């Protein structure tokens, strides 16, 4: 009986105690006025954010790239059927030199469409954008069936994933090259670059003010001819990375010149 009374009074005391401990403030850690001691939310103030886009305008020697069209690259008539790549780990560098991580972590970039959202980014001045061509190792070797169709990391057609290696194709170029100098590109080739060692980190200086005043877009040129510099398109034009590391490395070493801020 005595125990019961003690219990009931304890509950009341606790309830009163809890009431007394309530501290008003903002309880959202993501808010500007977040109060770690607050336990009663009375409103938060958030940083102004706006959606930022990244556009990749595809070119070959300054001409717009359309998949299926033929271009002269490294002196060789070359039809480009598929030109696709992954962009990930996107960070904007602000005026203070701090990195702001873009909410959209993975972009599957195709010539069309060429506009990609990076999600909402805090207003302010930015001086550069950093990203990887490729996919981080943990995600690279994860399970692609976890993503629904339409997700950048989900199944794609054409394939952007090697089942037998359980890893993504970071960069895919399929086409035909004129291997016998008759002017007709009829030698089918595949350049499928991937595996962890082939992830390339890129930093591009770019002054962009994110605000509600303007469109907030990083305009990039994807200069596809740059990837072929030093490639013998007529004679040594196919690599699935592991079966032709030499060619894969030439392409990898060309990636820093591939994406440039639009003039």
């Amino acid at each position, binding site marked *: 009986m005595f125990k019961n009374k*003690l*219990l009931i009074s*304890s*509950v009341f*005391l*606790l*309830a009163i105690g*809890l009431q007394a401990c309530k501290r008003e403030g903002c309880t959202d850690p993501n808010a500007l006025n977040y109060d770690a001691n607050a336990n009663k939310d009375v409103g938060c103030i958030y940083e102004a954010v706006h959606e930022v886009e990244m556009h990749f305008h595809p070119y070959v020697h300054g001409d717009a790239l359309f998949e299926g069209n033929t271009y002269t690259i490294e002196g060789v008539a070359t039809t480009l059927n598929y030109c696709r790549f992954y962009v990930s780990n996107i960070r904007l560098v602000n005026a203070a030199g701090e990195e702001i991580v873009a909410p959209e972590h993975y972009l599957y970039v195709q010539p069309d469409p060429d506009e990609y959202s990076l999600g909402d980014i805090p207003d302010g001045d930015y001086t550069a954008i950093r990203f990887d061509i490729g996919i981080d190792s943990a995600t690279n*070797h994860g*399970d*692609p*069936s*976890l*993503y*629904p*169709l339409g997700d950048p990391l*989900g*199944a*794609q*057609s*054409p*394939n952007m*994933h090697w*089942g*037998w*290696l*359980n890893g993504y194709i970071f960069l895919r170029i399929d086409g035909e090259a004129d291997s016998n100098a008759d002017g007709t590109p009829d030698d089918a080739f595949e350049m499928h670059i991937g*595996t962890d060692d082939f992830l390339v980190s890129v930093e591009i200086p770019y002054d962009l003010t994110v605000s509600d005043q303007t469109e907030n877009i990083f305009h990039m040129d994807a200069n596809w001819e740059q990837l072929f510099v030093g490639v013998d398109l007529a004679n040594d034009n196919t690599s699935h990375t*592991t079966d032709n590391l030499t060619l894969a490395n030439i392409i990898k070493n060309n990636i820093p010149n591939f994406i440039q801020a639009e003039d």
Partner: protein
Amino acid sequence: MFQSKVIPSFLLSPVCIFCIPFYFLILSACSVDPDLKEDAVYTLPEGFPPLPIPDDNPITAEKIALGKKLFFDTALSIDSAISCGSCHKQQFAFSDDVAVSPGVEGRIGFRNAPSLANVAYYPELLKDGGTPTLETQVFVPLETHEEMGFNMVLLVERLRKDAAYVQEYNAVFGGEIQPFGIVRAIAAYERTLLSGYSAYDAYLQGDNHALNASEKNGMQLFFSDRLGCGNCHNGFLLTDNSYQCDGYFSDYTADPGRERITFDPADIGKFRVPTLRNIALTAPYMHDGSVASLEDIIDTYAVGGSGFENQSTLIQPFTLTNEERTDLISFLVSLNDYTFISDPEFAP
């Protein structure tokens, strides 16, 4: 100190009075032992460890049925010509009797179709261990040019036009058809392909007459230090799942094996040690199916292999009398599971 004597406040909350019926619901749902439920849809052979089942792919009868339907459906190949079952035939313990099975349009790849018996237990799939789960493995034959030559996006689009699949998928996984459930259904079916009813199993379970004198002698030889087969072919699947170069070949240029995955030259010529269960049912042999008989392999081991630079040091020369060789083969044949190859449960 004070609070420790207090009943947790949420239990006293009036809201929770309304929770009581839900508590009963939750309790009754939990009272169904998931293991019991799963035992009803597959039978674990005696002596086998529990079936490893991923948290995101519990096995149900409906899922197995969907997986089996997909496994035997030619819709999985680009031209609807072949199914998984075209190369993994039950009569050969879900392997094939040709060196390299033809894919779509008669395309020939470079590896022998493996038996799917007990694949649930492999820590990694494929002969080189390139894919970590049965679920991710489904992408490989589906999308390999020399196998089904298809694409997951196109397969999903094809199946979404099939009213029966739409209904069955929704019943098992909920929602519209996605890669998620396609690979999980097939993997669930494959996990149930359990083979553990050979004469050797009966012998291990105490039936001394299950093996004859020749088979018993072959078993002694197999596990002897003299031959050392059991150094790699051990455990309930008669493999330790390690990657070894057995030195059967002297040149692995055409298929470097494990090196394809690790890029390590020391892995050239290494392949996962195969299970020897049903081995006499799964000829031809080796990674490329180029070897017709078990005798041929034993004779190569007997001379100590080719001496390829990455050959396992466990491959050492030995001598066998003709009778011993016959006994060793008899033991290997005793690993056949005739129940497995005739069980209608696994058939389309």
